[in-house]
C-alpha cells in the first residue's frame, strides 16, 4: 500500500500511509486507539475506499471495491469481533455465501461441504467434526473456524485485528503457533494487536502508526517493548485544555474490591477526592467501562464495596447510586445516554422527573425552566428546549447528557469517553464544564482512550490492564510512556497505589 489517505467528515483518518507485506511474512501493525490501523485494514479488505494512494498486489495496482474483490485477491479478514454464525455448523460457516449446490432442486451439497471442510480443519490442527454447531465450541476454536474459512478461500494475506482480545492465555498461545504455521505455509499475516508481548513473539517486522501517519518501522532485531511504545507516543500538544489546578484532597469516593461481570476474577480498588479529575487510561477492553458501570450499580453481578465519605453504598442498585449523586455519562451516547427521539427538555429532566411532578402530573413550566437553564449554562446549540435530541450535533447531544446530571447536583460524575466523536470546539467546552464541576467539589472520574485528553485533563491517571489497575500516576508522572507501559501490563517505578488503607 502506498500513500494511502482516508478522510472522514471532520477527521483525517489516514494521511499518506504506506506499508508492505512480503510473502510468508508476519507484519505487526501497532498504534494507539484511533491511530488509523483499523481504517487502513478496512481499505485492504474492501470495506472503505481510499481517497489517495494505491494498493498493489503482486506488484500490480488493484482496486478493491468490496469484500468480494478482496476475497478474489486472496485477502481474508479476521475481525476483532467474531463474524461467525454460531447457530450453524462448522462446514456451513466455512462455505457461507458460496455453498456448492447439487441435484434438480439446487440444494446445498452437504456431502461436499463437509468433505471439503475436513482437510482445512486438519491443517489447522482443529480436532472437531465439521458437523459441530459453533456455539458448542470455545471462542478460540470459533476463531479457528474463521481462519479455516480464510484458508478455504485460498487466502494469501490474512489480516487479524486484535484476534486475541477475547482469548484465554492458552488459546492465545495456540493462535500464535497457528500464525507461525501459516507463515511457514507461505501465507502473509498482518497482525494488529495492543499486546506487545505477542507482537514480540511472532512479528518479523513492526509498523507503527500514529495519528494516521507512518510513525516508524522496526525490523525483527529491533523489536522490543520499549521501542514500540516509544514510537507509538510523542506528539505535539494542543492548547485548549483547562490545566489542572486542583490540590489533593482526602479520599471522598472509595471503591474497594470491585469485580465486574466482564472480569469476575479481577478486583479493582481506588480512591478519589473532591475536586479531582481522576483519569482512567488503558487499552480498549481493559475493563474500565465495566468497572464504572459496576460503581453506578448498572452491573447486577458486580460485587465489592463503595464508600461515599463515610457512608457505604449498596452495590448493584443504580437508583440508589443516582439518589446519592453518583452519575454516569456513558460511552454510548445515543444508546445509553439519551432517548434521542425525545426533546431536550424531556431528556434533561428524565432522571429528576419526580422533582417536577406534583401528585402525578408533570409541571411543564418548571421543567422547561430547568432545561433552559442547562441550555444556557452549557451553551447547548439547539433552537429551543422542544427540539428533538436526534437533530443535535454530537457535541450538543453530549452536553444534553451532561445537563441532565448537572441539574441534579452531582457528587461523583463519571464520564466514559466524554469527547468521542465530538468536534474540537465542543471538546474544549466539555473540558471546561468538567473542570468547573470539579472546582465546585465534585469527584470526577473520566475514562478516555484519547491520550492527549488523559494527559491534559486529569489530575491523576489510573491505568488499567485486563481488568486491573496496574498503577496510578500523579500529575508530574503523567507521561505518555508511563501510561503506555502500564496499559500493556508492565510495572514501572513511577506508579503509585490506587488507594490507601
Amino acid at each position, binding site marked *: 500500500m502506498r500513500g494511502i489517505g482516508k478522510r472522514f467528515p471532520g477527521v483525517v483518518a489516514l494521511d499518506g500511509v504506506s506499508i508492505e507485506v512480503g510473502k510468508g511474512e508476519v507484519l505487526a501493525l501497532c498504534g494507539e486507539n484511533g491511530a488509523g490501523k483499523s481504517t487502513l485494514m478496512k481499505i485492504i479488505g474492501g470495506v472503505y475506499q481510499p481517497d489517495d494512494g494505491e494498493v498493489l498486489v503482486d506488484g500490480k495496482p488493484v482496486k478493491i471495491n468490496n469484500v468480494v474483490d478482496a476475497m478474489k485477491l486472496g485477502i481474508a479478514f479476521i475481525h476483532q469481533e467474531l463474524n461467525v454464525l454460531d447457530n450453524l455448523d462448522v462446514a456451513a460457516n466455512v462455505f457461507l455465501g458460496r455453498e456448492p449446490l447439487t441435484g434438480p432442486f439446487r440444494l446445498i451439497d452437504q456431502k461436499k461441504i463437509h468433505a471439503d471442510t475436513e482437510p482445512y480443519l486438519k491443517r489447522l490442527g482443529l480436532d472437531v467434526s465439521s458437523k459441530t454447531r459453533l456455539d458448542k465450541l470455545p471462542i478460540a476454536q470459533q476463531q479457528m473456524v474463521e481462519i479455516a474459512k480464510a484458508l478455504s478461500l485460498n487466502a494469501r494475506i490474512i489480516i487479524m485485528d486484535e484476534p486475541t482480545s477475547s482469548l484465554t492465555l492458552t488459546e492465545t498461545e495456540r493462535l500464535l503457533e497457528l500464525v507461525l504455521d501459516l507463515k511457514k505455509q507461505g501465507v502473509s499475516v498482518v497482525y494488529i494487536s495492543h499486546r506487545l508481548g505477542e507482537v514480540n513473539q511472532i512479528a518479523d517486522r513492526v509498523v507503527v502508526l500514529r495519528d494516521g501517519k507512518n510513525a516508524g518501522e522496526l525490523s525483527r532485531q529491533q523489536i522490543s517493548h520499549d521501542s514500540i511504545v516509544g514510537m507509538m507516543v510523542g506528539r505535539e500538544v494542543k492548547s485548549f485544555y483547562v490545566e489542572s489546578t486542583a490540590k489533593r484532597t482526602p479520599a471522598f469516593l472509595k471503591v474497594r474490591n470491585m469485580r465486574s461481570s466482564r472480569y469476575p476474577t479481577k478486583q479493582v480498588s481506588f480512591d478519589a477526592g473532591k475536586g479531582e479529575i481522576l483519569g482512567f487510561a488503558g487499552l480498549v477492553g481493559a475493563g474500565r467501562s465495566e468497572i464504572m458501570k459496576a460503581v453506578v450499580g*448498572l452491573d447486577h453481578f458486580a460485587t465489592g464495596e463503595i464508600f461515599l465519605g463515610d457512608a457505604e453504598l449498596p452495590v448493584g442498585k443504580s437508583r440508589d447510586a443516582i439518589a446519592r449523586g453518583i452519575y454516569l455519562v456513558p460511552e454510548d451516547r445515543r*444508546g*445509553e445516554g*439519551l*432517548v434521542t427521539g425525545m426533546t431536550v427538555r*424531556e431528556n434533561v429532566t*428524565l*432522571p429528576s422527573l419526580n422533582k417536577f411532578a406534583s401528585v402525578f*402530573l*408533570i409541571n411543564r413550566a418548571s421543567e422547561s425552566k430547568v432545561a433552559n437553564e442547562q441550555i444556557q449554562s452549557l451553551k447547548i446549540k439547539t433552537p429551543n428546549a422542544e427540539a428533538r435530541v436526534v437533530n443535535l450535533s454530537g457535541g450538543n447531544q453530549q452536553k444534553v447528557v451532561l445537563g441532565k446530571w448537572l441539574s441534579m447536583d452531582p457528587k461523583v460524575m463519571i464520564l466514559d469517553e466524554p469527547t468521542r466523536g465530538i468536534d474540537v470546539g465542543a471538546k474544549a467546552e466539555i473540558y471546561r464544564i468538567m473542570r468547573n464541576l470539579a472546582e465546585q467539589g465534585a469527584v470526577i472520574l473520566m475514562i478516555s482512550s484519547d491520550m492527549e485528553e488523559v494527559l491534559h485533563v486529569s489530575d491523576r491517571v489510573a491505568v488499567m490492564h485486563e481488568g486491573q489497575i496496574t498503577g496510578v500516576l500523579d500529575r508530574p508522572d503523567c507521561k505518555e510512556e508511563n501510561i503506555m507501559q502500564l496499559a500493556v501490563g508492565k510495572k514501572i517505578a513511577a506508579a503509585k497505589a490506587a488507594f490507601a488503607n
Partner: protein
Amino acid sequence: MKKELGIFTLLLLLCGVTAAINPRFLSATNLTNMANIIGLFGIFSLGLGMVIITGGIDLSVGSMFALAGVLLSMFLTEIAWPFASWELKANDFKQLPALVEKFQKPNPVSQFVWGQFPNTLKQDLVKSAGDTNQTARLQTALAGELNRVIAGPSIYDKDRFAALSLPSKAKGLIEKDGSAKNHAKLNRLLIHSAYGETLTSPREFWPWPLAAAVAILIPMLLGWAHGALITRMNIQPFIVTLCGLLLYRGLARYIADDGTKGLGNAEGFETFASLAKGKFLGLPAPFVILIVLSVIMWFVLHRSMYGRYLLAVGRNENAARFSGINTRAVIATSYILMGLLTGIAGILFAFYTNSISPSNHGNFFELYGIAAAVLGGCSLRGGEGSVIGILIGTALLQVLQNLVNLLGIPSSLNFAVMGAVVLIGVLADQYFQERAKKKLVKH
C-alpha cells in the same frame, strides 16, 4: 399531532362517503350503536396502545374477554355467595294486598305463617293493605315478622307443604337437613315457593360489585404475571401473551364446561346491568366510560411521570435505565394497566352480547386493538403513540365495519376491507415519514 390529523381526515372522509351513499349512516340508531361498539373496543385498545408503546404486545385480550365473561356470568348467576342474607327486606314485597289475601287462604302453609303473626299486625294488615299511604309501614312490619319466622326453626313439614311443588334447592336442603345454619335459607326458599310472585326471589349469588371486581382483578393479575415473565424472565411479550391466548381460552372453556353462559334478565343485578348497558346523557354507557377513561389515560400518558417513563422506556430502554428509571416496573405496570382495561371492556362486552360462548367470545379482539393502535400512530417498535390516535384508530375500524354493512358489501369481505385499510394507512404514514426525512436531509 400530524399523524393523528392524517388519520382523522381519513375517518371524516370515510364517514362522509358512507353518509352520502347511505343516509342511514347518520340515523340515531346507527350512530348510537356505533358509539356503543367504539366504546367497547376503544377501552381495551387504549390498554393495548400502552403496551405497544413499551415495545411489547398483548395477544391474550380476546381470551381474557372469554375468561372474564365466563367468570362474571358464573359469579352473578351460578356461584352461591356464602354470606348471602336470607332476610326479607321491606322492598321485597311487591303486591301487598295480594300477599295478605294469600296469607288468609285456608291452606296449611298460609295458616301456619299467619298463625305466627301477632294479632295487632294481622288486624292491621287486613284493615290497611289496600291503603297506599300505609304500604311502607306495613312492609317494614311484615318483613320484621317474616324474618323472625325465617330465622327460627325449620318450618318444613311434610304434610304442610304437600300441596306445593318445592324448588330443587329446597328439596336438596330438606334431604340434607340438620345444620341450623341452613334453616334460614330453607325457610326463605319455602316461603318464596308459597308466596312466589308477590315476593322478590331470594338473591343468593355473588353481589355484583364483587363479581365485577373478580372480572377486573383476574385480568389484572394475569397482566401482572405477563409483566413479570417479560421483565424478570426476559421472555418475549409475543410468546408470553401467545401462551396466554391459548391458556385463557382453554381455561374459560373448561370452567364453563364449554357451554354458553348468560346473564339472563340481570335479575338481582339490575343496577349493574343498567350501568353497563344504559345511557348517560343520551350516550351509551360504554362510550361514556371510554371518554372518561380516555381523559384519564390522556393525562397519564401525556402529562404524568409514568407516561413520560413509558415513552422513554419504549424508545430506549437502556437510556431510561441509565437515567435511574425502574424500567422493569414501568413495563410490568403497562401489562397490569392492560389487564384493568381488558377487565372493564370484558364486563361491558359480556353485557353487550348477554351470552358468553367461551369458544368464540372475543375471538380476534387483540388484533382489532393492535390494528387500532397502529392505525392511530403507535409504532410496534415502541416509544410512539397517543391516546387521541388510538381513539381515532378504533373509530376508523368500527366505521369501516359499519360501512361494509351499510354499503351492501358482502359481509364475508369484512376482514379483507379492514386489512386493506390498515395496510393503506400504514403505507401512507411510512410514505410521508420518508418524505419528511428526505426534506430534512436536503435542507
